[in-house]
């Protein structure tokens, strides 16, 4: 019962998504705001400023390198968390 209600609600949300999609810029639009506001600088100046022809690499590891630090920390956290969850024997395990 609740499952069916959930599915109905999700279908309604899907209709909302579809309606909203009509207000988005169409796929592949050169005039979309996302293509005009911030990213042109990366395309035009990335090589000059970082000597890296791969713009994705320049954005990832230089312009937004702090995000990448966060990413590295997230993945290391995953390792530490796995050790903390599975690799440690603690007294409460026997309870």
């Amino acid at each position: 019962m609740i499952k069916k209600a959930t599915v109905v609600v999700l279908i309604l949300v899907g209709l909302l998504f579809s309606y909203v999609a009509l207000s988005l810029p169409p796929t592949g639009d050169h005039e979309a705001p996302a293509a005009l506001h911030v990213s042109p600088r990366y395309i035009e100046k990335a090589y000059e400023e970082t000597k890296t022809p791969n713009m994705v690499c320049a954005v990832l590891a230089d312009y937004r390198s702090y995000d990448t630090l966060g990413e590295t920390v997230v993945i290391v956290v995953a390792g530490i968390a796995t050790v903390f969850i599975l690799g440690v024997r603690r007294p409460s395990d026997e309870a």
Partner: protein
Amino acid sequence: MTAHLPILMIVVPLAMGLASPVLAMLSTRLTRALVLLSAAATLGCAAGALQRTLEMGESWSYWLAGWPPPWGIEYVVDPLAGGLNTLIAFLALVTLVYAGPYLEKRTPLEKGTFYALFLLTVAGLMGMVITGDMFNLYVFLEICSLTAYALIASGGRRATVAAIRYLIIGSAAACMYLLGLGYVHVMTGSLNMADLMVLLPPLMADSPVMVLAVVLMAAGLGIKVALFPLHGWLPDTYSYTPAPVLAFIAAVMTKVAAYALYRIFFFVFAVAGPVSVTLEVMGWLAAAGILFGSIMAIAQRDLWRMLAYSSVAQVAYIVLGLAIGNSLALIGALLHIVSHSVVKGLLFLIAGGVKWQTGLRNIPEFVGMARHMPWTMGVFVIAAMSMIGLPPTIGFFSKWYLILGAVEAGAWVFVAVLIASSLLTAIYFFRAIEFAYLKGKKPEEVPAEAVLPARAGLELPVRMLVPILVLGVGVVLLGLFNEQLVTNVIQYALPWRLP
């Protein structure tokens, strides 16, 4: 070095957190000393940054990697963000001191990973508070959430189930936030908060995309805040998590999410178009949540579960303040973020101390507790006063501002809800206090030795008692100096300056 304070307060716990699993394999004593030192250093950095922004009187922008904001990432420290970070660092230091006895007989590997996860949670939360970039907020949200899931899971079998349910719900929430951010990005092409403040207003009026973006972000952050119908993860999580972890997570995590909600709705979206409707809906949900949480708290016998449900209610106060949305209510909401962090952390420290010393969790078993633990229970009374909203504690002033704001806005239903909730809170806290104090007065009726195990009759060890006392004094001091707090710190964080 003072020029780098905003980043140092993140990097110090981050670096120490990454180093501690390695260091713990060499020497656990050294690790503990260094961890405490780094927590203190974090506190120092945060306090220094706070002081500097107070001197400058405006927000302080720090460009990471030296790139100017819309292209790079910036950190923005305003007085409230600095203040919140000081509070987070302080609570982290206090909780780490308190955690000492809990970790005594554990393996070095467990100690090292525990310290690592704890410090990385601190770094993640502090990064969320001061970041000026929407995507960076997501990354740090994930850091602090992932560490929290792992820390929660250390409380035994049931805690593991609570942790994985929290993980699934919380990651779905983060996904929703990210999709909402995608809708914002597709319409503006920017990720920087200050930049979005300029770009968004023309779009807010009539674009259906913004409605969806606002709703998705509200749902995502609402789950993290544990707003009423989305609070499902909270009671289980809070009942089974070990106390030192819980005191920090319960104190800070939901509040930081609420602060992020505040910044996104009031600064990035600037309360235009769909945001005000969403806020109104959230206000009604919060009112329902306050009543629901309070009533459920009365129904609990377990102290921890009672505190968990009271958290649902108290967090809803903050959202209610945001929903009312005038200056007084916003001051109340922001002050309540501070007040509830300190008080809830304190209450869980006390609950954890009682459990650690006597093994008791249920309120009816607390008979005579006040004679055995006079200091702890004394502080419990202060904390309860703050939760109920009695002067001179900080809880009184935050509720006072909230009620004043509701009266000014003419929202009488909200006034009624706030007052009713205070009464309900009084009921469930007085019940606990009654069992701890009054019933214990008649030892001939209930022999305390029969109720409490052999280890009882002792006050907590100093390492656990000092944090409790410090926070207890803090609750009163914050209450006494609330006016300075409002005029110096919170006033500058309002979307408009007070007249």
